[in-house]
């Protein structure tokens, strides 16, 4: 279950900085049309026809089709579980609907993120009324995700290298150290920001 957060997690960062007609569209427009497509997919029983539209948009955006299809498949473990349960409960038609609906929806979200950098999506969300604090916390979390995750992985490696047994107490102690070092890191970040003039009298 331990999975290293690595390059594959940041693939949208590369894709969203490519150039294409879709990448050039204004981010608020892309966010709104993604939400519209999602709502349409959720409500229209014949929305599977939109599967024809998705590859066209992906190719128009000059994105790798298999890569994006694979990315959207991340939703399938959850979907398959519940589709199987629904099938078992005697509703195979609904099970199939769940499968294509959730996969198509994941494809729309992936298309948005592959054509728009996260900071532009957040700026667009901010224009539609998302609270400033929330947007800032998302930006900080995204910025330090790789840093803290890398530290957690180094701690894990170091613990294993010292020949530690896998135990509940050691894991808890590691998390406590990671927590307090993250706390200290946040303090350093704040002082560095203040030293550069951030916040001030705001």
């Amino acid at each position: 279950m331990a999975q290293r957060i690595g390059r594959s997690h940041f693939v949208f960062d590369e894709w969203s900085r490519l150039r294409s007609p879709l990448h050039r569209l204004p981010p608020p427009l892309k966010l709104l049309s993604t939400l519209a497509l999602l709502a349409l997919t959720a409500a229209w029983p014949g929305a599977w026809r939109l599967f024809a539209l998705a590859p066209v948009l992906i190719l128009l955006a000059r994105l790798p089709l298999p890569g994006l299809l694979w990315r959207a498949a991340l939703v399938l473990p959850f979907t398959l579980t519940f589709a199987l349960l629904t099938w078992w409960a005697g509703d195979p038609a609904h099970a199939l609907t769940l499968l294509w609906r959730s996969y198509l929806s994941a494809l729309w979200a992936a298309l948005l993120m592959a054509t728009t950098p996260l900071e532009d999506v957040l700026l667009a969300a901010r224009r539609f009324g998302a609270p400033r604090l929330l947007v800032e916390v998302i930006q900080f979390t995204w910025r330090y995700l790789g840093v803290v995750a890398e530290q957690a992985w180094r701690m894990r490696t170091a613990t294993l290298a010292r020949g530690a047994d896998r135990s509940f107490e050691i894991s808890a102690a590691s998390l406590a150290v990671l927590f307090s070092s993250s706390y200290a890191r946040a303090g350093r970040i704040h002082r560095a920001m203040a030293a550069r003039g951030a916040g001030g009298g705001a």
Partner: protein
Amino acid sequence: MHIPDGFLSTPVWAGLAAVSAPAVGVLARKAQSGLDESRVPLMGVMGAFVFAAQMINFPVGIGASGHLLGGALLAITLGPAPAAIVLTAILAIQALVFQDGGLLALGANVFNMALAGVLAAWLPYRLLAGTRARRLGIFLAGFLSVFVSACFCLGQLALSGVHMPGHVLAVAVAVFSVTAALEGAITVAVVAALERVQPGWRREAPQPGRRLLILVGLAAFLLASAGFFLASALPDGLERVAGLVGLQGREQTLFVSPFPDYEALVIANPWLRNAAAGLAGLLLTLLVCLLAGRWISRWRNA
């Protein structure tokens, strides 16, 4: 459990988004007021910490392992409003970047984990923090944050027409209990280790006078979530009770609706009716809890 898009029916996701968006707005203002600027980097780094914490495994016998989910730990260390904002930020990143949970379903996921989950963690901790049963409070915080979120999640899926056989539901509740107990145990262990590493971070104990209020709130909240889960998982139950009491035939004459067309539309669509009934019940319960809390606090102050 992050609900992806395509699972929730339109009234359910739209209704929960309409509940969650203003709630997050209010909590953001509450988390910001009276706190200095250093809180923003802290909340952001804590969000990254929760992501990273998933890489540290907690072995639980026979080869299985789990990891921290983090809602209760955040509620205990940061307080409820900042914890809700950090969890909302995490859910947004998971939905946008990791295809873990849907964008339309974000309102539902925020409601389940960032609002209901944090509340379910904060109330028992707050209730028991100043007593000798503090560890029990921390365990209950971890347990309830996961269990309540999972029950709401299943309830919303059932409202949206994702039906599960009865015995599967029983197995699901058993699995949730194990996951929730693991989260409780991990939270207790991490908080204990944290107090050894960094003594003095502990938040102040609650004033004894408010304990009754919190207890009533916790009881009402748990009843509401259990009721929501049962009512939506067994949508026919309410109708059966109505039939037993003999209301079945008299409904039409009892309630004269100001919007007959709308009423007909709602009655004709069972899923719309279930969703509307569930959400209305939820809102009503929250309102009752709020009013009861106000009344009790005024009564105690008088």
